[in-house]
C-alpha cells in the first residue's frame, strides 16, 4: 500500500501544489482582513469568483481580436491579471466602505451577517450578468497554456509513476508564488506594510503616529481583494469552466487554510493553503487505498477536514499562530 502511495506521489504533489497555491493566495485575503478588523469577510470567496468571471470575460474579449495572436499569451495573461486585480481590489474597498465601515462599532455578529449578505448579492449579480450576456451562467473561457507536459519519473526511479500536467500548472504556481512573496515583502519590509501591522495591533496608537487608520483599512481590503481576484483568473485559466458558485466552497476552504495556519498570520495562511491543497489531493489519490475501497476519492474533503479538526484540537491558534495568551 505504501509503495502505491509513493507511486502516485509526484502527481499528488503537482496537483496539490496548484490547488494549494490557489487556496493560499485566497486565504491571504481572509487573514489580512481578519488581522486588521477581526472580521471574517465571507464575501471574499465571491471576490475570487468575480475575479474569475472578469478575467474570463476579458480573455474572451481579447481573444476575439485578430491582432491578439501576435502577442505572447503570457503577456495577455499579465494584462488580464492586472486589470482584474485592480477591479476586484476597488470592489473590495468599496464593499468595506459601504457595508462594513458603518458597522465598525457594532457587535461582531452584525458585520459577519452583512458579509454573508454581500456574498449572496455578488453571486446573483454575477449570475445575472453572465446569463444576460452569454445565456448561461456556466462559462467556459478560451483554453490557454494547454500543452501537456509529462515528467518521466518512472525512468528516474521505478518507485514513481509518471506525472503529467498542463503548462498552465507552472503559470499558476509561479504567479501565485510571486504574489505571495511580494505580499510578504510588502507586509514585512515596507513602511505601509509595517503601518498595516501597527493598525492591526492598536488602531488608536497607530492614529497617534499620524497613520490614517481608515485609509490603511481600505488599503488592506484593496490588496486582499486584488489578490483574490487575481487568483480567480488563475483558477479560470487552470480549470477552464467557472460558475457563480465556485467562490463558496473554495472560499470556505481558503478560510479553513487561514485558520489552519493561524488566522491573522500572513505566512500561516500561505502555509495552511499549500498544506490543505496537498492533503486534499493526497486524499483524493489514496483514500480508497487506505480504507480498502470503503471511501472513494469524493470523500477527500472529509480527510482534509479531519486533519483540520485535529490541528485545532491540539493547536487551536493554528500551526503558525501565536498562543492567544501571549498578548502583551
Amino acid at each position, binding site marked *: 500500500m505504501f509503495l502505491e502511495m509513493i507511486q502516485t506521489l509526484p502527481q499528488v504533489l503537482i496537483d496539490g501544489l496548484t490547488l494549494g497555491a490557489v487556496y493560499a493566495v485566497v486565504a491571504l485575503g481572509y487573514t489580512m482582513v481578519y488581522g486588521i478588523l477581526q472580521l471574517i469577510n465571507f464575501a471574499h470567496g465571491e471576490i475570487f469568483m468575480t475575479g474569475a468571471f472578469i478575467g474570463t470575460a476579458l480573455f474572451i474579449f481579447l481573444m476575439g481580436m485578430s491582432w491578439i495572436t501576435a502577442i505572447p499569451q503570457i503577456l495577455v495573461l499579465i494584462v488580464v491579471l492586472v486589470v482584474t486585480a485592480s477591479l476586484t481590489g476597488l470592489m473590495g474597498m468599496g464593499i468595506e466602505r459601504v457595508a462594513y465601515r458603518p458597522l465598525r462599532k457594532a457587535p461582531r455578529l452584525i458585520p459577519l451577517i452583512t458579509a454573508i449578505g454581500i456574498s449572496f448579492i455578488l453571486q446573483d449579480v454575477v449570475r445575472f450578468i453572465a446569463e444576460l450576456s452569454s445565456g448561461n451562467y456556466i462559462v467556459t473561457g478560451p483554453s490557454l497554456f494547454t500543452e501537456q507536459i509529462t515528467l518521466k519519473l518512472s525512468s528516474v526511479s521505478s518507485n514513481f509513476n509518471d506525472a503529467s500536467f498542463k503548462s498552465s500548472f507552472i503559470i499558476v504556481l509561479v504567479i501565485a508564488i510571486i504574489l505571495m512573496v511580494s505580499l510578504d515583502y510588502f507586509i514585512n519590509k515596507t513602511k505601509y506594510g509595517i503601518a498595516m501591522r501597527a493598525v492591526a495591533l492598536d488602531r488608536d*496608537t497607530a492614529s497617534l503616529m*499620524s497613520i490614517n487608520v481608515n485609509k490603511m483599512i481600505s488599503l488592506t481590503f484593496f490588496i486582499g481583494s486584488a489578490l483574490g481576484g487575481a487568483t480567480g483568473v488563475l483558477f479560470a485559466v487552470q480549470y477552464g469552466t467557472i460558475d457563480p458558485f465556485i467562490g463558496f466552497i473554495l472560499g470556505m476552504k481558503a478560510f479553513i487554510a487561514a485558520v489552519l495556519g493561524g488566522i491573522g498570520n500572513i505566512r500561516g495562511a500561505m502555509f495552511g493553503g499549500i498544506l490543505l491543497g496537498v492533503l486534499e489531493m493526497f486524499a483524493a489519490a489514496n483514500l480508497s487505498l487506505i480504507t480498502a475501497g470503503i471511501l472513494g476519492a469524493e470523500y477527500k474533503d472529509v480527510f482534509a477536514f479531519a486533519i483540520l479538526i485535529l490541528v485545532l484540537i491540539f493547536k487551536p491558534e493554528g500551526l503558525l499562530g501565536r498562543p492567544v495568551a501571549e498578548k502583551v
Partner: protein
Amino acid sequence: MTILQINNIETYYGGIQALRGISMDVKKGEIVTLIGSNGAGKSTTLKSISGLEKVKTGSIFYKEQEITNKPAHQTTLIGMAHVPEGRKIFATLTVKENLLMGAFSVSKKSVIEERMEMVFGLFPILKKRIDQKGGTMSGGEQQMLAIGRALMMKPDLLMLDEPSMGLAPIIVEQIFDIIRQLNQEGITILLVEQNAYQALSIAHRGYVIQNGEIVLSGKGTDLIENDEIREAYLA
C-alpha cells in the same frame, strides 16, 4: 506665547460625563503637569486634545489653530505628540519598526535616520535592542521606546500620560531627567502624572483635576507647598 489653549471642554463616554468643563493653557517652553487621582479624567483630557476622543462642547487651539475634534492622525501632523498611558508599544513590531512608525509622516530617509540617531543618543539601550520585538522589552525600556517613538515626530508639544507608571524609582528618576532635558532643548511638555511630587517638582505650573474638573492650579513649587495637595496627593 500660548501653544495650547483648552476652553471649557466636556467629554463623554456614551452617557457618562468624564470631563466637566476643563480649561487649561500651556505656554511655549513650559513643563505643565496635570495631576489627579484614578479616574479623575487626566487621560481623557489628553485624548480629547490629540483627537482620540471627541469633545461634546468647548474648543481646543494649538498654535492658534483650532483643532477641536480633529482626528488624531491630523493633530499629530502639526507638531503635537501624545505618548499614551501604558506606553502602547506595538508589541510584535521591532524597536526599529516602532520608531519608524513615529516618523510615518516623514518621507525623507535622511531625516528619519537623523531623528533615529537623536533618539539613540537619548536612549542608547534602544540602539542595542534595535531588532528586538517591542513587547519583549522591560517596562522601563518600553517607556523609553514610547518616548523615542514620539520624538521621531519631532514634536513641539509632547504630551506624556503617566510615564512613571509601574517603573522602579531609579528608572522614574531617569525618565524625569530626560523630560527635563527635552524641555531644555525647547520641547513644551504636558505631563500627566499620579506621581504628584516628582511631577510638580519639575513642572513650571500644574493643574489638579478631580472628577473631571480643574480644582486647583498654580506654580509647581506653590502647589507642592499647598496643604490640600499635600494631603490628597503627596501623603
